[in-house]
């Protein structure tokens, strides 16, 4: 049977990808962030999964406003890298896992999640930047297939944090029900606090971020019970992306082990963070 072996939470700020693409990671602005990734990257390089399920949101690239799914899961065999206005990032095409993806859709729909099935999808920075955070030098190919799971975080009403956490739990059940022995990593992406527009543009809330960073491991239910207004007021209009970390968290066991984390301000207008968890009780 398949199992969830580890979970990665990471920001997906486009400039993090650009810093890597333009080889600026050792400049003073970027070095602290990338230094913070090192431990996690080393661990993940030793624990290559068979498949990744990557939870993210599209940013006006593949999903327009004419048809906005709350949750969409992509079942195609491959996903081209989107041109977001400055040309596609110079990273490899992403290969999917159609069989597992189909299984996940079937399980989730049976489990009363009203999943939109995406068969054609170009993946934007929300997707490729986390892959780059995980694996900085893919060469011609990413290390394993990746299944995109999209969440609407840009048009109110977003799914509630509670619904995201519940989706994660159902995702975990669905993965564990897959008959093949696959090691699956789940990525929850976005955040932490940031707001791009309005008079509060540039908002950073390190207190909320630290609370979230702690409770994502120890008390995700508390985070799942926060309202949209709390996320937006405390973490900014785009900080609500953090609800996607709860999908990752829900897919994991109750007790998980923190392998590494880092927090850095700023990555352009954003508080950037990473948290890596192995799916086993601490000390076991």
């Amino acid at each position, binding site marked *: 049977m398949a199992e969830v072996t580890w979970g990665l939470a990471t920001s997906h700020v486009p400039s993090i990808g650009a810093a890597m693409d333009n080889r600026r990671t050792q400049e003073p602005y970027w070095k602290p962030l990338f230094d913070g990734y090192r431990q996690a990257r080393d661990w993940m390089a030793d624990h290559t999964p068979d498949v990744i399920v990557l939870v993210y949101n599209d*940013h006006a690239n593949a999903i327009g406003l004419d048809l*906005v799914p709350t949750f969409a899961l992509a079942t195609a065999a491959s996903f081209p890298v989107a*041109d*977001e206005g400055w040309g596609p990032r110079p990273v490899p095409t992403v290969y999917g896992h159609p069989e597992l993806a189909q299984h996940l859709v079937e399980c989730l729909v049976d489990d009363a999640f009203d999943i939109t099935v995406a068969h054609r999808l170009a993946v934007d920075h929300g997707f490729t930047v986390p892959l780059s955070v995980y694996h900085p030098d893919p060469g011609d190919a990413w290390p394993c297939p990746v299944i995109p799971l999209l969440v609407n975080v840009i048009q*109110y009403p977003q799914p509630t944090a509670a619904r995201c956490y519940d989706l994660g739990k159902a995702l975990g059940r669905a993965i564990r029900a897959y008959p093949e022995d696959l090691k699956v990593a789940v990525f929850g992406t976005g955040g932490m606090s940031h707001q791009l527009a309005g*008079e509060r*543009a540039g908002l*950073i809330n*390190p207190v909320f971020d630290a609370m979230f960073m702690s409770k994502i491991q120890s008390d995700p239910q508390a985070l799942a019970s926060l309202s949209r207004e709390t996320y937006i007021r405390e973490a900014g209009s785009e900080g609500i992306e953090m609800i996607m970390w709860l999908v990752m968290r829900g897919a994991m066991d109750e007790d998980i082990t923190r392998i590494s984390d880092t927090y850095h301000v700023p990555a352009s207008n954003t508080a950037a963070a990473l948290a890596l968890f192995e799916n086993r009780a601490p000390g076991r």
Partner: protein
Amino acid sequence: MTTKPDVPGTYVFDIADSRHGHAINELCSTLTTPAHRARFLADEADYCDHFDMTPAQRTAVLQRDWRSLLDLGGSIFHVLKLATVDKLSMQHLGGVFTGMTTEDFIAAMRAGGRRCG
């Protein structure tokens, strides 16, 4: 949780915004191909004619009135594509939205970001 969040100084893009801002967002979403970007930059007014914009929306696009673009229903992620064709950064827009110079906005971010309320 049944009401839309109301947070001062914050846009919460919703379905009504999507309806009102449809033409702005549709125009901006076309800027994801090189051909459309070139065509837009070659004749912006003509490009606008292909979208069913209000006069205020059209003016906001042509004048890069970033605040108005959002007030008239633009989504920040769509409007950002218009800034991208101008090679303007998110920090530039942050300065516009907060009444700061780009340099001051960048400095504020490097100092740990803005504490807002």
